[in-house]
């Protein structure tokens, strides 16, 4: 693209061009209107003057005959700014007046309306001038011409033309100024935004657009674009996280699986040996599938896809259902599981499936890791309403999680020291956190003195 082409395509240039166009049309109209109106007015004045003079001269003729008319004309013709007068006989010979020469055909017309003619003044200058004249035939056959020079009208037209030219010059100057202002001040911001976004596209994911703090529309635009970039960065790191974790945590069991099959093949070729190896293989692959499913589920929930149907449900009912489902398992593990719900239904638009799974994961964790060193284990499940927030709590009376470890415990695949010996994928809590986020809420790990208290806060609206 040429340099000029580039300039022409800028918004600043287009805005300035529009500015010129609009104001040109406006002033053109304005000036044309004024000049037309004044022209009409001046013409009218000229005609009126001519008509009045003709009337006066006709009166003179009636009173004093041709002689009187000639006298009056001689007297008036030599005053400054005089009208044009001419008296001729039938043959066209000039008897009196201040017009040196006029086309013959003008005299032969005897129109009632004034007409525009070119003439030469009698007073010495030989310039051809334009005038508005009217010719009348006197009763005796003489011709009487009265006219006014139209020079004034021409002068006026020139003034208007000058004004128009100046207005155009002024407008071009103003348009150039506005072009400079728009391109410098406004479009520079846009250029800086597009430069920043190009930089980010090229890989600087942590980069953000400049916010000047002026609070104008560019700041608002930059703010929302930055929010979008935050989200994209978050999702991207999520994907990267998942792939890293898949590489790291799924490869280990896969290797184990392969080793087992290899060992079985290398060992004695008897059915019992193979059978045992195959059974162990199925068990191991089932565990892998579970981990994989949990990972996919978290990824899907975090991507914000409408997983599961969000319906209007009673949180109390979910808590009761899950407690009822887990009560026998807890009982068998020697844990007392209680559920406390609000007296009134707590209606929330949520996925019953995902809320149920989140609670199930928390209870599962509490049964596995929440037993106190001595004394009876107890898990308390509760649903309460605090203002416009649904609060779901799962509390145990076990050793709890040290404050420093709590943040880490929510991350994927993180298994705190104590849990490493137990079966599990390390995804339970991250799934709970993802479910909470999907419902626009959050989870928090707290101290139950003793024990761990996991609180999910979900907004009801």
């Amino acid at each position, binding site marked *: 693209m040429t340099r000029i082409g580039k300039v022409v395509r800028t918004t600043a240039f287009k805005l300035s061009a529009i500015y010129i166009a609009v104001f040109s049309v406006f002033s053109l109209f304005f000036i044309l209107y004024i000049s037309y109106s004044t022209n009409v007015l001046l013409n009218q004045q000229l005609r009126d003057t001519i008509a009045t003079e003709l009337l006066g001269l006709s009166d003179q003729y009636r009173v004093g005959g041709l002689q009187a008319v000639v006298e009056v004309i001689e007297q008036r013709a030599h005053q400054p700014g005089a009208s044009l007068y001419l008296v001729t006989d039938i043959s066209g010979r000039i008897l009196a007046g201040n017009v040196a020469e006029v086309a013959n055909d003008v005299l032969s017309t005897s129109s009632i309306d004034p007409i525009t003619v070119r003439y030469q003044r009698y007073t010495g200058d030989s310039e051809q001038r334009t005038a508005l004249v009217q010719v009348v035939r006197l009763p005796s056959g003489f011709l009487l011409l009265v006219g006014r020079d139209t020079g004034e009208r021409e002068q006026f037209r020139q003034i208007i033309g000058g004004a128009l030219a100046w207005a155009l010059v002024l407008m071009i100057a103003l348009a150039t100024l506005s072009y400079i202002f728009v391109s410098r001040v406004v479009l520079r911001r846009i250029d800086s935004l597009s430069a920043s976004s190009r930089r980010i596209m090229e890989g600087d994911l942590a980069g953000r657009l400049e916010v000047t703090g002026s609070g104008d529309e560019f700041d608002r635009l930059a703010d929302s674009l930055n929010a979008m970039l935050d989200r994209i960065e978050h999702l991207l790191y999520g994907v990267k996280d998942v792939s890293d974790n898949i590489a790291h945590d799924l490869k280990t069991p896969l290797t184990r699986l392969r080793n087992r099959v290899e060992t079985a093949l290398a060992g004695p070729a008897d059915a019992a040996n193979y059978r045992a190896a195959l059974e162990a293989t199925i068990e191991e692959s089932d565990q892998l599938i579970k981990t994989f499913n949990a990972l996919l589920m978290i990824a*899907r929930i975090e991507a914000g896809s409408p997983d*599961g149907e969000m319906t209007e449900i009673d949180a109390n009912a979910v808590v009761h259902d899950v407690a009822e*489902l887990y009560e*026998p*398992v807890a009982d068998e593990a020697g844990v007392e599981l209680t559920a406390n719900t609000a007296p009134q239904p707590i209606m929330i638009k949520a996925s019953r499936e*995902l809320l149920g799974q989140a609670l*199930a*994961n928390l209870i599962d964790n509490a049964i596995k890791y929440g037993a106190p060193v001595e004394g009876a284990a107890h898990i308390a499940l509760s649903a309460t309403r605090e203002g416009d927030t649904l609060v779901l709590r799962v509390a145990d009376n076990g050793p709890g999680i040290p404050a420093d470890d709590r943040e880490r415990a929510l991350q994927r695949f993180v298994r705190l020291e104590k849990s490493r010996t137990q079966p*599990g994928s390390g995804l339970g809590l991250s799934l709970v956190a993802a479910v909470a986020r999907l419902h626009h809420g959050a989870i928090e790990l707290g101290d139950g003195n003793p024990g761990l208290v996991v609180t999910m806060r979900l907004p009801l609206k």
Partner: protein
Amino acid sequence: MRILLIEDDKEAAAYLSKALREAGHVPDHAPDGDQGASMAADGGYDVLVVDRMLPKRDGLSVIEDLRKKGDHTPALILSALGQVDDRVAGLRAGGDDYLAKPYAFSELLARVEALARRRIPDAAETVFRVGDLELDRLSHTVARSGQAIPLQPREFRLLEYLMKHAGQVVTRTMLLENVWDYHFDPQTNVIDVHISRLRAKIDKGFREPLLHTVRGAGYMIK
């Protein structure tokens, strides 16, 4: 019973056909959506097993078309997707059950047999009987050898489902789905403990046990 298997993965189809035959069924195989649709339209099948993603034609549209024509042969949808919304889409299209890949063959077999059983109208049946065990769906009472057994509401539904499928294997996930209406994997053996509680109530003190554990598959009442 006759089973139509619409599945494009040749190896999976061969394996399933063989296993279904060994289980005493007569499987037919269609490798793509078009052929599957025409074979299903010819009728005569007790159950359709339909893979969701098929060449030529999507599995869901095959089922949708059948349903539009008034064919209500039970259909089990197989899918690699396995998420909640996919399951909902499958059931909405007219599928009767949904199984996510990878699955255990025992799970598939149990579901196929349960689906075939659904064809027999049992809505009118108000009393289930297995041996000397009796469950009355109207009065919500259970008795064995004439002796009333008090059950919790959930235990009653659990037993009801098992007795509805008496003589068939019922898997743990089938129980979780149908009795509790949850589709997630509970990690721990929650269902086993519910079953052993139920077993303690209906089998304890009787000479002949009715509720059996089928190793590697699930449970069966007979």
